[in-house]
């Protein structure tokens, strides 16, 4: 494999990996937000003002 092909491969892998990191990172953040919200809702039901 020549140098150009190696660089092409590395750039392609980087683009695909970053895409997945962004998408899965956002999904994880959303899941954490959802979990925190569920806890907050449960505690507000248990301790009504």
């Amino acid at each position, binding site marked *: 494999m020549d140098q*150009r*092909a190696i*660089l*092409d*491969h590395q*750039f*392609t892998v*980087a*683009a*695909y990996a*970053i*895409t997945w990191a*962004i*998408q899965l990172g*956002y*999904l994880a953040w*959303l899941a954490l*937000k*959802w979990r925190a*919200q*569920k806890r*907050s*809702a449960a505690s*507000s039901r248990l301790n*009504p*003002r």
Partner: protein
Amino acid sequence: MKKLAIGLYAAITVALLGWAFYQAIYVAPEEQTMHEAQRIFYYHVPSAMVAFLFFAVSLAGSIGFLAFRRNRAEWAQISDAWALAGAEVGVVFCTVVLITGPIWGRRAWGIWWTWDARLTTTLVLWLIYVSYLLLRRFAAGPQVQTLAAVLGIFGALDVPIVYMSNRWWRTQHPAPVFGGGPDSGIKDPAMLAAFGWNVLAWLAWGLLILALRYHVERQQQKLAAREAQAALDA
């Protein structure tokens, strides 16, 4: 039953993403001038298409909020939740576009960035929607939703400008793949199939996280309303 349907949809989406990845990497032939780096196209362009679609969802939600805010409070809140979900998930996809584009550009053009019309208008679009999200996150008061809706409508005006930018101004960015004249379009059927599968897969994924974001926002609105009511009752 609802949980089963959501689980089934999520499983189909994951399978689609796997199949689309296989098509893009192993089935589609290597392009003759850009070689393997051209495969970035299969993530870059579908992400842009999904981002545009979700900014349109945000536009519809923003218009809905402004239309219903005085007489149908519940509908206004539903519209507002769609506006926020569309903007946020749209920003996620637009971020993917703005990162994968320069990576591809570095191999294809030898530069990471240039102030080309398509690149600049896409960056402006991203900045407008990031400012929309910052407004939603940090501003307080009864007018925030209204201000955000107005910003969301103006932000969406940039979408057709981004779409038309490489038709109106010919600079660095390649000519449109589709709808750009008689020479546009993907000629190789295997490349076209890989592209189609990736559009479908990323659309399915996008709709899944859009629905989840909408659900979280609606729950947040209901929680806030309950707490406000409890404070009034106390």
